[in-house]
């Protein structure tokens, strides 16, 4: 397969032109073609959550999404959630404060999931936060701190 397709992707409010094979995933489009490497590849088969991005404000696994599927939709990655002036998003700040990561590899996916989790309203209790953050594996084991960070950011957002 060598045929390529022209795509225009709206990522973090900016338009990006791409000329890629139709089988290129959104994850590989971001990492290999657009140098937006904040989105991580942990399994490439939809099991770990490290590649979590937002499409039209909802969390998706970018490794199971073809780049061609998301043309014309709003894609948000970890590079796009801090304020214009560089101030961290409240969820990013809470992750830093609570030490909700160690190696940092699952962190962008955790944060993108956490932002969506708060928006979805799934932060009513620690149990609910745990359940709705369980699609994002963290092998370093920062789960207690992830729950604390999400709880604090959710309270601040109310």
């Amino acid at each position, binding site marked *: 397969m060598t045929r390529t397709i022209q795509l225009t992707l709206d990522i973090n409010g900016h338009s990006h032109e791409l000329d890629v094979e139709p089988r290129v995933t959104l994850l590989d489009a971001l990492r290999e073609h657009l140098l937006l490497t904040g989105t991580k590849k942990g399994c490439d088969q939809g099991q770990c959550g490290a590649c979590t991005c937002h499409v039209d404000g909802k969390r998706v696994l970018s490794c199971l999404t073809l780049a061609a599927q998301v043309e014309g939709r709003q894609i948000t990655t970890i590079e796009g959630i801090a304020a214009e002036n560089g101030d961290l998003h409240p969820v990013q700040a809470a992750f830093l*404060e609570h030490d909700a*990561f*160690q190696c*940092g*590899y699952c962190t962008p996916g955790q944060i993108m999931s956490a932002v969506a989790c708060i928006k979805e309203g799934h932060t009513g209790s620690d149990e609910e936060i745990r359940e709705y953050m369980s699609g994002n594996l963290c092998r370093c*084991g920062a789960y207690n701190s992830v729950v604390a960070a999400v709880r604090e950011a959710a309270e601040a957002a109310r």
Partner: protein
Amino acid sequence: MTIMETRKHGSAADGLVGGRLSRFEGDLKVTGAATYALEYPVDGLAHAVLVQSTIAAGTVVAVDASQALAVPGVLMVLTPEDDLGLMTASDWYGNRPENQPFLPLPREVTYNGQSIAAVVGESREQAIEAAKLVRVIYEEKPGIADIDDAKAGKGKLMDNLSVAWGDAEAAFAAAPVRVEAEYRTPREYHVAMEPHGLTAKWDGDQLTVWEPSQWTHGMQRNYAEWFGLPIENVRMISPFIGGGFGSKGVALPYGAVAAAAARKLGRPVKLAVTRPQNFTSYGGRAATRQTIALGATEDGVLQAIIHRGANETSTYTDYPEQTGAATPILYKVENFSSQSRVVPVNTVTPGALRGPGKNPSAFGIECAMEELAYKLGMDPLELRLKNYADHDYQSGKPWSTRQLREALTQGAEAFGWSRRSHEPRSMRDGRQLVGWGIGCGTFPVLRAPSAAMIRILANGRVEVVSGAIDMGQGTYTILAQTASEALGVPVDQIDVVLGDSRLPGSAIAGGSMLAGSITGAVHKTAAAARDELIGLALNDPNSPLRDTGANTLTVSNGRIASELGQGPALSLPELMAALGRTEIEVVRNTLPEDAQSLTDQNAAWSSMARVQGPTMGDYSMHSWCAHFAEVRVDEDFGTVRVSRIVSAFDCGRLYNPKMVESQWRGGIIMGIGQALFEEGLVDGRNGRTINNNVGDYLVPTNSDIPHIQVISVGVPDHQASALGGKGVGEVGIVGVAPAIANAVFHATGKRVRDLPLTLDKLL
């Protein structure tokens, strides 16, 4: 009791050693700006994909790559036919076989999932497609699937691991109370969230490798020896590592494949090992079996411990997973015997996974101790305290520090152990059976020489520079704190540069030896830099502090001044400007004075030859912990959930409690996974790892984990390290699985001696 309350950062003490400074490189990680190995933009990149064997044992007779080569964009297919011209590298200790070729794509297959070919294409997608079209013809031989295969046999006795004192057999035979059982742990895997892989790039005979590395200098040497290069011709770059847990400490065959492909093609090559391929590209923790026999008096005084252990290894390397590692040092016992065997099977050679040896070892002895407690009708906490080891009975040496008694008593108090009801099945909450259990853990203090550089720049910023790495333990953070304290410069004026083999050499980030070793080197270097700064300020003709009459000066909060206030208090930029210096650079190391040659230094940074074990000095030095676990077992379904954990640790002085608590919790969580979920499954017909993905090989998710309370009972141990800390990263997992297994017995009355504790074993 010192319960570590979470505290907001911002205290004046946070920048000093022992403060709760937030993760120094944290901004980069929460914004996605931290750059991991496969994320470096390199021009002209080609992509390599591995092809792995589908048989357990045999010979590659032929590889038909014609279809693969016909795929558009495919540049090359490497097979066992290709002579890559590589030589075998040294082992960890620096020993190297002479004139032994290294074949990263071998003709002889020794396990299922072994790399035997590689496809390189213009794009990864093209290479993946082509890799599926590579046809391999094998001549298959009978294989041994795993340790339970009838053909596996009893294995080989590892004489160097035999330990004995007193007369254990006689004391056991004479003991009025005896327990004896076999404990089993399955294959377990690291599953670092960042899969392995690398980008390799040649510039003439200079090789640059971007690869996650727990040891940049060790892996630099590995590549140099494979390719016959002077060590300085190889550069390993690894400033961020997405988790390692023992898996990223050596260069692996796939790395040789990528670098050889790059050399053949004359362009850089990126090779990303897929998640399934990670399960066989390097070894996880070996499956283990061990029999423990304990003899005791009727009032619970241990008389004898007999341990017989075995673990799987590969057919080509004897890798001992030392199930007898914790057995001799947890308790006071006058009669002891331990022997270990390795059982070769057709697997990739197992490797070091968090708490190697100590972890499965503690599963044996800590389950056995609770079995003894129930046989005696004694509280398991009381039994442990009653047999407390006042010194190391194996080496005969005194402990440097051992706060295990404090860990047991303070952990018990925080957990509420005194409210326990002894009888199994005697505590419940509705349909949930509730159980409590204890597991103790230990890990030795290992030390290695290290080097560091401090650069004071004209703008007043201070760089701390080391080839050491940070895979999440907090190296960036604690080195900033160490330099801040030793130099007298605020932490926000400090930059830390790590993870590059061109930088000063360092201990491996493994065996919990990095923090203690590298803080010692940085402290020494920073103190020397401070002395040099003061010397210049007192003696340089251009220094405004020269004629103040002061004998010495202090550096505090980034200003240099005389103690009595004679003359000005200068900021670093002011002093550097007055001195006319653009930088002051100081390099120091912790090697002995008689081992400072370049050869000595290269050997020290790239081999384990100078690593100091726990009993090489006058003391026996170890970290210690006690875990208290509560489980809830569904009476009808047998499902086990861990509902509460309290763990108390003696890791000496904590350089940054915030980072330490995170590592402790991380180890405990991996221990929960080990206890409840993790088990590599092997197809007995062909030796294939069946569950080679994270949907089938289960690691803990957020909803599996309760709040975990961690307590520090340690005291500074200056025998163990320059700044008083002992190892933190490994010990957290050790003892967790037995605490949970013991709690499950307390809840259900069923003793499961075979991890993981899945519901089928409880129904």
